[in-house]
């Protein structure tokens, strides 16, 4: 947060303030991780990106950074019913198998098969190519209980 304020002040004097504010608005800032705006976050470090009734789910940049190199992703079966806050799979990084939790309830309609051969995509592109599952939501109201980017960034900075 402090770096963003410093940067915008300097660039403002160079007439670039509007561009900086626009770029800064796209992300919140942790010390070294990215927290993208427009996503909803669970306290357990998963994100949900909603389009219609479908939520695409992955793990945050903070989580992938803390886990280390991802070597395996255990994907659920398509058709599996998931519940908010319950585990739907496992991400293995060096030495550790970490449960991942669904931020929403519903039915798994797609899994990211690319992660079978390239699990490290979770590290290199946690918000885009590294998505894990897509869920047809059974209760869109659950999204209200998730954190927005700023709240998630603040939560992570407390630790």
């Amino acid at each position, binding site marked *: 947060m402090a770096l963003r304020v410093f940067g915008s002040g300097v660039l403002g004097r160079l007439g670039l303030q509007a561009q900086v504010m626009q770029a800064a608005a796209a992300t919140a800032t942790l010390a070294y991780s990215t927290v993208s705006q427009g996503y909803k976050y669970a306290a357990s470090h998963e994100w949900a990106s909603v389009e219609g009734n479908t939520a695409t789910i992955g793990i945050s940049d903070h989580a992938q950074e*803390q*886990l280390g190199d991802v070597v395996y992703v255990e994907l659920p079966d398509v058709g599996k019913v998931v519940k908010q806050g319950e585990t739907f799979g496992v991400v293995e990084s060096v030495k550790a198998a*970490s449960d991942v939790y669904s931020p929403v309830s519903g039915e798994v309609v797609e899994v990211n098969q690319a992660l079978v051969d390239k699990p490290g995509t979770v590290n290199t592109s946690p918000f885009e190519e590294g998505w894990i599952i897509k869920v047809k939501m059974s209760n869109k109201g659950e999204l209200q209980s998730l954190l927005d980017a700023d709240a998630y960034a603040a939560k992570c900075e407390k630790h």
Partner: protein
Amino acid sequence: MSRPVLNILRLCRLPIYTQLHLEEALLRATKDNWLIINDGAFNPAIVVGISGRPPELVQCDEAVRYGIQAIRRFTGGGTVVIDHDTLFSTLIMQGSSLPQVDCFPQPIMAWTEQLYRPAFAAAGCPDFALRENDYIVAGGRKVGGNAQAITGRRWVHHTSFLWDFDPERMGLLRQPAKAPQYRQGRDHLDFVTRLRDVLPTRGARQRLVEGIVSSAAALGFDLQERTLADAAPALRHPQLLLGTKLLDLRTFVAPDGDGPQRRTT
């Protein structure tokens, strides 16, 4: 402020398959903290991590001929061969009991060094250290395997310390594709070491066990000695899904006319 309770479970020669089931049940079905020490497994076994592919990690045809049990465990990490000379030490923790330790692999690993370093010193080994993701002694020789499972704000970190090992059984493992940098290309027998060689004095094995328990107390836990009867009810928890499975290595062996000859261990 009260000290968090750490349940101490001392076992001897519990089969590793049972131990892993018990650990996973205590992790998933309770909110308690446990330090489990199993002094030796009942029988030898090859234990692979959650995603381990036996053909890449194990000399499967040799292992089938040898007749050794193979297990897939619920934690990450690599492959180990264990037997009665493996000393198992397992920590199962509720994150709130260690608020200064983030529930992620590296902070957990770093905290365990604080537990084990004094224990090894008390047993006669002052140079125990964590290097990359391994416990080493004697300037760079590995003394055991580590693995973790993290579920929300609970985690398990278990270690198999090699008090001694059988080189023939160790030879049933293939060299993994990825090795830590500090290995520097060394052969397996130059990379790992037997704890009995590092702690040669009489009674050192027991002193190490007691040192681990004492170190936990020094780290701020209120120790409570428990028995298997106290821990076992976790295995009966409804809806408990356990990830530890037996592996049939024969499914990874190419069929031939004669089939592999089994040898009893």
